[in-house]
């Protein structure tokens, strides 16, 4: 499991940096390296691209785990180059971006989109297994999550669009409810689905709640 990231379109990055001439680049040695979105090769590639459009890259580093508090020390080590920059472009997940922002008094821009905490099935292909909803329903669904894997979050699925085991919204996506029914049938436990699952407590999830106090 890792934080799955994807590079933002370069045009979007250029827009952020429109008024910033000098840029410092930060990559991450953990998830972004594994996703090939913010490891050393990608950071160097970004450096080249930025220089090509006339930006000055005052320095770069790949922090071993950008979301960790050790990021503060890492930044200290190259503080002069960091300070010379107008802005920092962070090629890490959004945890990394916010960690850097916490330790440096500079504008910080994300170079990546943070997609999910997920599983990389093959390079560039991810599955969404759990979205950390904080009110786990796996007990009712045979260990397959309908919140992370059914686009409509159905607790009493499947919807009428499930066809041939595929989800109506995308034929590349397996229907989560098809999987659930298949699994419970195999286990001889389909009767588990007879009970109506009541509305979910969303108040504890990130979509429903204020952030916990820190």
């Amino acid at each position, binding site marked *: 499991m890792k934080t799955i990231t994807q590079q933002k379109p370069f045009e979007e990055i250029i827009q952020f940096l429109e008024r910033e001439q000098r840029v410092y680049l930060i990559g991450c040695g953990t998830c972004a390296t594994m996703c090939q979105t913010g490891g050393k090769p990608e950071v160097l590639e970004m450096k080249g691209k930025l220089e090509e459009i006339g930006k000055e890259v005052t320095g770069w580093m790949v922090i071993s785990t950008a979301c960790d508090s050790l990021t503060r020390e890492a930044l200290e080590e190259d503080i002069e180059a960091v300070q010379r920059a107008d802005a920092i472009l962070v090629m890490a997940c959004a945890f990394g971006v916010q960690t850097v922002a916490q330790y440096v008094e500079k504008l910080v821009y994300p170079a990546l989109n943070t997609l999910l905490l997920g599983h990389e099935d093959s390079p560039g292909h991810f599955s969404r297994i759990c979205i950390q909803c904080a009110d786990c329903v796996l007990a009712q669904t045979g260990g397959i999550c309908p919140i992370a894997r059914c686009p409509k979050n159905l607790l009493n699925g499947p919807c009428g*669009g499930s066809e041939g085991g595929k989800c109506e919204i995308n034929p590349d996506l397996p229907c989560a409810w098809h999987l659930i029914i*298949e699994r419970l049938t195999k286990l001889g436990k389909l009767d588990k689905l007879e009970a109506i699952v009541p509305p979910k407590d969303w108040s504890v999830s990130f979509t429903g709640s204020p952030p916990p106090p820190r």
Partner: protein
Amino acid sequence: MKAGTSLEKVLESGKFAVTAEVGPPRGTAASVIQRKGELLRPYCDALNVTDNQTAIVRMSSVSGCVLLKQLGVDPVMQMVCRDRNRIAIQSDILGAVALGIGNILCLSGDYQSFGDHPTAKGVFDLDSIQLIQLLSQMRDEKKFLSGENISGEVPLFIGAAENPYADPFEYRVLRLAKKVKAGADFIQTQAIFDVGKFAKWMEMVTERGLDKEVHILAGIIPIRAVGMARYMRDKVPGVSVPDGIVTRMEDAKEAREEGLKISLEIIEQIMDIPGVHGIHIMAVNWEDIVPAIVEKAGLLPRPLI
């Protein structure tokens, strides 16, 4: 009687019901709904007003229902879970009842990526079964989901959709049973083209005795053009159109005539299937054909309630 709507009365009296769908305009003209309402009034027992169907923004279902109501038509208000959370749902139901709407059809809703605002945030706070259960609680216990009391009566006749063609086929009847358990009073099915498969589904339904607990109205979509047949076969989730029907449309000299003929044949066969209590005609952008269908199917005059 739960709500005393015309639809409920027709169904409860054991008569074969006819409903049809009215698509609201992508604009503000009441006349669009009024014209369709006037046209269909003598031919149907109730008219459904869709709720931002296929996730495309249209005039709201509740307003369409009120416009129909003013013409003396019994409306069925469709409500999807895609666009509102439990707070908005309950508030809309209170308002609908206050405006004299009694039939509500509960749906999950087409996913927003199919519509004209694919970047919208889908709500899906409840699913359609939870929605049905919530409405029966509001009606029978006069309580909100929270358990707090509702002041006043909440007379509702609760509907749900079901797709006999979706997979896994064997599970669909269990899911229907779940909807009945949640409190569904009537079911309007997805469009029926493959009558054989529908008959098989109905057999499973009647075996479980579900036809005694819920009124099943079979969905009918008249096909206007061969392109539409192909599009429904290949592109519309949950609709299954056999190749034979597409071929008939391809070979037809007069596509609309053939489409009408196909619908009439389907209705004739459906009326022979035990447990079917009515039809629901979804003539998307072709409402004008509904009178001909109802008349030629021998379903006139509609019972006076």
